[in-house]
């Protein structure tokens, strides 16, 4: 259990106060937090899921495109933000912990702190109605 950097702590606190679903990973891609609105889409409370290694959560959370094709690992939005350190936007299907597919719009971006310290990445996502953009 390593102490979190202040930027990550503040990101969690901000996420806890916002009504948009937010998912935060550390610099290795391990899940460190998601907020209550995200719990509604992911189908599990964060207190139950806890911090999860990247290999595990990328296996559990299945992402597919509009045709049902699974997104390759390296094209997953948070993996792009982590590996390429750039923001992304996608509209994709997610099959989360409760195995119920949901269409979401997702924005991801890297977390870069003071002195260009790379700290992880963050995703903000919404459930959208199928057929609408």
């Amino acid at each position, binding site marked *: 259990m*390593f*102490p979190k950097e202040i930027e990550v702590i*503040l990101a969690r606190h901000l996420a806890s106060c916002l009504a948009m679903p937010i998912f935060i990973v550390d610099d290795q891609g391990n899940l460190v937090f998601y907020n209550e609105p995200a719990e509604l889409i992911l189908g599990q409370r964060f207190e139950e899921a806890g911090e999860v290694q990247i290999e595990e959560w990328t296996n559990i959370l299945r992402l597919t495109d509009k045709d049902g094709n699974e997104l390759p690992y390296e094209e997953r939005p948070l993996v792009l933000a982590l590996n390429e350190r750039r923001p992304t936007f996608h509209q994709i299907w997610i099959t989360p912990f409760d195995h119920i597919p949901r269409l979401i719009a997702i924005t991801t971006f890297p977390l870069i702190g003071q002195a260009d310290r790379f700290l992880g990445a963050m995703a903000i996502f919404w459930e959208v109605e199928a057929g609408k953009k």
Partner: protein
Amino acid sequence: MHVKLWGTRGSLATPDPEMARYGGNTSCVEVRGKEGTVLVLDAGTGIRPLGNTLSHISPRLDILLTHLHMDHILGLGFFAPIFNPNMEIHIWGPASTTLNLLSRITRYLSPPLFPIRINELPSHITLHEVPCPAFDIGEFHIQTMLVCHPGPTVGYRITENHPHGPTFTYLPDHEPALGAKNFPLTPDWTSGYSLAAQADLLIHDTQYTHEMYTAHHIGWGHSSLTDAFKFAMLAEAKQLVTFHYDPAHNDVMVDQIIATALAEAPPNLLVTPGREGAVFSLT
């Protein structure tokens, strides 16, 4: 290790007889090691009287700035050793995301805010940016980390380099409760925890009462006494020294605020009200 408080006031110096007991100078703490190394923590107005005692101590002085708010740097231009051509002065402090430490300090040490530019000062000044990996100065081992306060702000953990050497943690401006529901959270999610863990002495921000904090000052970067107690207990610090008093609080009010907080939520550690001139000896 000896720790002496030269300035305990927060935000603004208060040269007021009714505030003289706790002190009117802003943040400055002297740390002196067994081998004579001197560290100066912050350069509030308390650094001016400290400077008058340091002329013949050592050819090198290290000033460790937590951040660059005015109450922590205002005394820098009035610190006698910086005008001594035989002095080597190392200033440690945070850069911002867009400005290096030199540019940030120069905003103060240059006209119109100060008549002399930093490169015109007679002493030999070297700047070091923090946070950075742990480093040693003389007999001290020093760890730094960004902590919760508006703008880049670091806390310091200073350990004397000998077996069972004491540890002192300095967090004068710190709001670890910001945004945290049911503060404190677990140690890894608490700002400043690893700096303060099991410290022999913790100087921590106690600017507000719980009522002042929750009613008007959330997000201002400072702590209530109650939250400081919770933080110190989470960190299992051995002794907490209250610090960074609100400039609107006179001595009688500070007495009452501390007494009330201790009565309402007594912490299971030693709490000592920080007073200007107080010395703590750690072994």
